[in-house]
């Protein structure tokens, strides 16, 4: 059963087995506005928790996406090249960014669950 966790930088990571799928939240896509390009990391790249490893370009600005956990990239969402708008339309579905093979699932315990994240977003006004 998949378990989804959230960061204070508005990334989500959905864990199935030892692979985590990473994207940005509904709140993040609303704040960014129309996404026009996503620079995703290539398979094989090793990323460290907190490292800037993808960039999402909206019409307004470029924003870094940080790895919510340490691991190795096993797949990037190739569909975003032609449909970056998927990030706006389905940020937690078709608009995912990349998948990593997790080095240490224990790292995820510091992240928020859905209820905690929703409460966190409420504090942002």
């Amino acid at each position, binding site marked *: 059963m998949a378990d989804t966790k959230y960061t204070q930088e508005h990334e989500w990571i959905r864990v199935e087995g030892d692979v985590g799928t990473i994207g940005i939240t509904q709140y993040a896509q609303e704040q960014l*506005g*129309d996404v*026009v*390009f996503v*620079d995703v990391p290539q398979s094989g790249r090793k990323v460290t928790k907190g490292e800037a490893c993808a*960039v999402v*370009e*909206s*019409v*307004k*600005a*470029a924003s870094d996406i940080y790895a919510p956990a340490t691991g190795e990239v096993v797949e990037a969402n190739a569909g975003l*090249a032609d449909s970056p708008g998927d990030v*706006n339309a389905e940020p937690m579905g078709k608009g995912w960014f990349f998948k990593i093979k997790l080095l240490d699932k224990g790292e995820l315990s510091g992240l928020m669950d859905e209820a905690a994240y929703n409460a966190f977003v409420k504090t942002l006004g």
Partner: protein
Amino acid sequence: MGDTLKRTPLYDLHRELGARLVPFAGYEMPVQYPTGILAEHAQTRTAAGLFDVSHMGQVRLTAKHGQNAAKAIETLVPGDITGLQPGQQRYTQLTNDSGGILDDLMITSTGDHLLMVFNAACKDADLAHVQKHLAATCEIEPMFSRGLLALQGPQASQVLARLAPQVATMKFMTGAFFVIDGARCYITRSGYTGGDGFEISTPNDATDAIARKLLAEPEVKPIGLGARDSLRLEAGLCLYGHDIDTTTTPIEAGLLWSIGKERRTQGGFPGAAVIQKQIAEGAPRKRVGLLPEGKAIAREGAEIAIGAKTVGKVTSGGFAPTLGRAIAMGYVERAHSGNGTKVDLLVRGKPVPAEIVPLPFVKNAYYRG
């Protein structure tokens, strides 16, 4: 001033429309409405968009007895202002002694007065500058509380003609007084999108009602500052503080066309010696259009390189919705500034191949009659 953000006469309307408001030049301004920047951009290119630009600084200049306001303002700008017929408008710049640009502005002659529109972020400094130099010759009246609406797009004319029929035959860069909804407005056929459109100067207390009237027309939707920026970038228009500033001259910026022919030889404006030398010998660098390959966006500050050599810097860059691709503008050393030159734009440290191309990126659609 403090930290309090100012509000335009349309603040309540923006809130009602669900705008995302951001601080801009000391004002709380709408960056976008719920439909988003791409939709707002397309709306303005295909139908009509209404922009609140009331934050810009409107100033009226009137000659004192026995004086000439156009002659007076020509001591501060390189544009041909004395040649303006009543109802004509020009784009020009306030220059400094080294030929740099303090601000860029529109000046319209009404016959009795000159109406100037400054950038919001510069308007206080501009007003002080004009007062310092022209107080002896002109009455200088800031009209900062007036509203300014921009109605832009291919259907702007048919919409505005319902409220003021004569606007339909106005030509690009002309202006006239109109009464809309009982309020005396000054309308110019101009804008900042590269398309057809109007700017409507309104009495403060009539601004909201006129904006609502325009928004009630089926062709019109509200447009925020986000799309204003992508529209002007496609049109190759300069954004003050980014593409032009006190360190760039009008010649470097490719604005020679805005300098009056006689003024090029006669001078008489701040920095004339520098600007005349650049007209004669060429400027050391030039503002150019840049078309990057692929999808990466080179934004302001990105270095422009040829091989290992840095030859310039991006001053504006973004996604061009009309073209569905990234575009940019920047300054490049003159020797490397020719159209077709291949360069690299350094985006997050990675070179993105790009080509120098003529501006604008999207063809102008001004109404010239």
